[in-house]
């Protein structure tokens, strides 16, 4: 089945993340086409359906394994954790939600930050985890991404962000909104320093994250069929009271409207990122040696 037909078959909207956790069973029903897929085969295909191309949602450490050269990842800034500055309570206390999210994911925040090599290039990586409170951005995500960006500047290496998020974290109120300014301001510094930011957008990338660092890549790459936008489809529908066009706010739609550079199948994601790094950086040690070798050969 081609990509267009699986898009049509997909249900709209953001679904409960619990349904997408990786099962222990041998078989798994594809959420795109409904086919039963062999677990091992899914894994081999990097959690994409080989029948319809549907991309299952991944956790940050799965993206780490897909993107980074084996053994090269070093987690950084892992000690930064959320507090509950507003003492926020809705149907549950925010502090209880945080505890539950930590228990469920085994991580202490919605973003995994660290350094690693991609095709030999050293880079800083910030990988968002939708499983942790919808990958929402509060003070911790803002701080980790801003500091990681500063480390990229200090080390003079590129920054790679991978987003999968519902947007700003309401439970930290205005402080969450300000993380948009904070991360964007640090990215402006990265830009002024002549360094590269590759932004990858996975399903879903919406709200305050799309309206800040996720849209500020020098190169913006999206996974197929990802929901990407500022406002969520339900909010838009409630506001304008019209049906939304076919494929609205999906990666392919965004590329068509000029908002994304490349839509890339997960199996080619690393290759494309490495190609971008190859072209736009000069500081991969292997490449530097190559260049030196070339120069020597030419007797320069």
């Amino acid at each position, binding site marked *: 089945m081609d990509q267009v037909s699986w898009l049509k078959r997909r249900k709209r909207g953001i679904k409960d993340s619990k349904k997408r956790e990786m099962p222990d069973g041998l078989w798994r029903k594809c959420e795109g086409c409904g086919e039963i897929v062999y677990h091992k085969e899914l894994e081999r295909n990097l959690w994409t359906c080989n029948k319809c191309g549907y991309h299952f949602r991944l956790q940050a450490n799965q993206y780490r394994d897909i993107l980074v050269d084996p053994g090269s990842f070093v987690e950084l800034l892992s000690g930064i954790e959320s507090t509950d500055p507003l003492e926020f309570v809705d149907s549950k206390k925010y502090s209880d939600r945080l505890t539950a999210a930590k228990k469920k994911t085994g991580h202490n925040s919605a973003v995994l930050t660290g350094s690693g090599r991609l095709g030999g290039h050293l880079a800083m990586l910030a990988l968002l985890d939708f499983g942790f409170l919808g990958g929402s951005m509060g003070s911790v995500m803002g701080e980790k991404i801003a500091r990681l960006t500063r480390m990229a500047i200090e080390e003079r290496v590129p920054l790679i962000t991978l987003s999968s998020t519902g947007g700003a974290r309401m439970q930290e109120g205005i402080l969450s909104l300000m993380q948009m300014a904070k991360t964007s301001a640090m990215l402006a510094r990265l830009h002024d320093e002549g360094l590269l930011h590759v932004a990858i957008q996975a399903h879903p990338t919406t709200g305050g994250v799309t*309206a800040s660092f996720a849209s500020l890549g020098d190169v913006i790459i999206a996974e197929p069929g990802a929901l990407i936008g*500022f406002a969520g489809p339900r909010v838009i529908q409630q506001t304008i009271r019209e049906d939304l066009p076919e494929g609205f706010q999906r990666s392919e739609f965004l590329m068509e409207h000029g908002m994304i550079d490349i839509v890339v199948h997960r199996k080619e994601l690393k290759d494309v990122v490495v190609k971008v790094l190859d072209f736009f950086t000069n500081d991969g040690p292997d490449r530097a040696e190559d260049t030196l070798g070339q120069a020597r050969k030419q007797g320069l």
Partner: protein
Amino acid sequence: MAGWLEFEKPLLELEQRIDELRSFADDQNLDVAKELARLESKAEDLRKQIYGKLTRWQVTQIARHPRRPYTLDYVRMLGIDFTELHGDRRFRDDEAIVAGFGHLNSRKVVIVGHQKGRDTKQNIQRNFGMAHPEGYRKALRVMKLGAKFGRPIITFVDTPGAWPGIGAEERGQAEAIAVNLFEMSHLPVPIVIVVIGEGGSGGALGIGVGDRVLMLEYSIYSVISPEGCASILFRDAARASQAADAMKITAKDLSELGVIDETVPEPPGGAHRDPEAAGRAVGEAIERHLSELEQMGSVELVRKRLAKFMAMGEFKEV
């Protein structure tokens, strides 16, 4: 009493009675000084009673008051000889944001602000102050023009939020806001932000990155509207009042959270009760902050602006 808030009405009625009594007494040449004094003191008590302990939801209603001064009202009250510049040079002119230049006292300044409408016709034209991407792009174009010639920038924030529509998404609402945050963070001229009414989420922040962020006393600034927060987290938009309390959205709250630099006091009851007084307070605050910022070179200015936003947020390190 159309266009007034429920909790304002008892005071307004009393004030009306005082006015009537005064003009009646003048006409009839009667001495009502005693009665007037009694009513005035009653009005004063009522004022304290109503405005002394406003709930966050009441502040929200004042921030959205249909009579509240808007950007172009402040531009007029500040005595700025405003020349408006239109369009983003990409798609169209978005009237939900106004941009242009003029003199504030003797200083040349660039002005950008959300603009709401006073009546239905104006509100359709202005889209209730909810900008499309082209509004943010126009704002940035004019701010960059100002920066090119070293002119300080003043922005007035007053929007329910960026417009959530099909065209807005197609033309990159998120990208437009993101680029504004990025660019405003390193424009080499002083930027003073004044939240004059509603600071609605990314739509507000899209013209809200600067060296000083000021808020009028009865304005609000939040990550999502109280109604939006209520419908998502409380599953009921009617619980907006509860959401407003949970999110802490007033000038006092934001001052305590270290997000704003100054609260500009409003006349009793809010800016709409005495717009000129509000205008004077805003003018005084802008003048004071611009004078301070002009002492800094552009490198120092941008460095401090980055440090200001880097310091925002609360977390622990374990």
